[in-house]
């Protein structure tokens, strides 16, 4: 019985997850495949002429190294955006979405507790994110030979772990808002606001000394600042992201247990 909820949820989402896996694999392969063109000298000059503020705001690193290129592309913008959209979508659906459609009513009329449902669906979210993270590693690794990307599986895995942790933080915040309120709109809105603010905080922080503290409170900074593609897993940053997820789920759980399920 105890595994029934998360496995069923994953099973129900299998087609959606397959779509996400294929999409993120395609994006990874495309970006990685462009590396030989981008690392050509003309691009290096163009890159050098860009204002440093723009470069930093968009999380761009040295595009001519493999780590810098991937850190600016797959792991820089599109990867995190896709992963966060995915996580917010599942997070909003798993409690609030099912509650609004009436499906949650039937589930909770069975011998399962609300904490169990919330925790098992958090597990489903983690599994979905791991699938995406692993997909990126595999996709980039497969084209790294032909594309002359000089990166090991370990570096890719480290960056993907950061990616998964970022998604987990955003998904958990969304899930918690949905569990606390029962409103899918509030969950998506709340998750999106947190995601956008944390991205903006990370983008603004390098622009002025007075703003540098923003990296301490921005989950996106926790994701990106340690440059895991170069330096490996930054356990402190990953810990912050997972910690945020844990706090969000705990708060969501406390409120979810107490309230009425909506019809």
């Amino acid at each position, binding site marked *: 019985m105890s595994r029934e909820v998360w496995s069923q949820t994953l099973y129900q989402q299998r087609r959606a997850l397959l779509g996400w896996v294929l999409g993120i694999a395609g994006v990874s392969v495309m970006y990685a495949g462009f590396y030989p063109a981008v690392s050509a000298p003309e691009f290096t000059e163009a890159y050098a002429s860009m204002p440093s503020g723009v470069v930093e705001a968009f999380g761009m690193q040295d595009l001519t190294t493999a780590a810098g290129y991937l850190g600016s592309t797959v792991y820089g913008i599109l990867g995190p955006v896709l992963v966060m959209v995915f996580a917010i979508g599942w997070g909003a659906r798993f409690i609030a979405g099912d509650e609004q459609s009436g499906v949650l009513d039937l589930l909770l009329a069975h*011998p399962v507790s609300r904490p169990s449902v919330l925790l098992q669906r958090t597990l489903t979210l983690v599994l979905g994110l791991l699938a995406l993270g692993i997909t990126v590693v595999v996709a980039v690794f497969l084209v790294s030979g032909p594309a002359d990307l000089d990166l090991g599986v370990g570096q890719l895995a480290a960056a993907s772990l950061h990616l998964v942790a970022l998604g987990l933080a955003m998904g958990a915040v969304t899930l918690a808002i949905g569990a606390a309120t029962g409103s899918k709109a509030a969950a998506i809105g709340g998750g999106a606001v947190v995601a956008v603010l944390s991205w903006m905080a990370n983008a603004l922080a390098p622009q002025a000394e007075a703003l540098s503290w923003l990296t301490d409170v921005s989950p996106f900074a926790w994701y990106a600042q340690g440059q895991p593609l170069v330096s490996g897993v930054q356990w402190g940053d990953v810990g912050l992201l997972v910690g945020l997820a844990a706090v969000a789920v705990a708060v969501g759980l406390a409120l979810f247990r107490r309230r009425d399920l909506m019809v």
Partner: protein
Amino acid sequence: MTTTTAAIETRGLVKSYGRTPALLGLDMRVETGEVYGFLGPNGAGKTTTIRILLDLIRPTAGQVRVLGVDPARDGVELRRRIGYLPGDFVADGRQTGRQLVEHLGYLRGGVPRQRVDELAERLALDLSRPIKALSRGNRQKVGLVQAFMHDPELLVLDEPTTGLDPLMQQTFLELVREATAAGRTVFMSSHVLSEVQRGADRAGLVRAGELVTVESVESLRERAPRRVEAQLATPLQADEFAALPDVRDVRVDGAVLHCRVDGSPDALVKALARHTVLDLVVDEADLEEIFLGYYSQKEHVDVA
């Protein structure tokens, strides 16, 4: 709370949604092994009560015991022993009935496939079709299968016959009778009197968040007013019928008699037998009329 364990017992159950009151102190006792019809118009608080029994919502005040247990404290163990049919049965439409029922069975630690097949066969339900492809009545049957399949001690059924054709309603009543014969308790809500009359032993009448009265189904039937319209071959006089016992509100329109019968229709039938009756229509009164009947009688008693 009383010493013997009732299947369901509530004391002063109050539920408000914000400032909107839904239950205003409901006192109810459902005995083990009976079929209890929970009868009331829409919006009376039936579904609210049922959702409290399952711990889907929490009471604002008052006490609840279901199978001797407080739903808010031991909900998981309690729900293991309950079969529940929601008033609005919704499930993910992409899966087949079989997949849904199996999933719900796993949540209960496994349910014999044989039992599921037997229920589906009796209800003439094809479990291999996706739920979204099923008609409303067939979806309701899936709901019935999952409620009955684990042979629960207590069945909580919110408007169970919604969408079922008369033949299937009959099958449903058989399932209810089999459950009570095996010592189970059935608590079913309805806004249709005849449905409760056919299926229940006792009926609790709920209105505007309060239990108005609890009666055996027989006494409810005696009290239930019926509207009668009789088309005779020749014009008639109102006086002939106005004085009959249990007959009220007599109105004559040429050869057509309109009246209301509270209690036994015997006198009216015998009076009509003296005429040539071309057509006879007897309608069950709606619930509001029953409640009005109850209130007017209560006032008589109060005055006396």
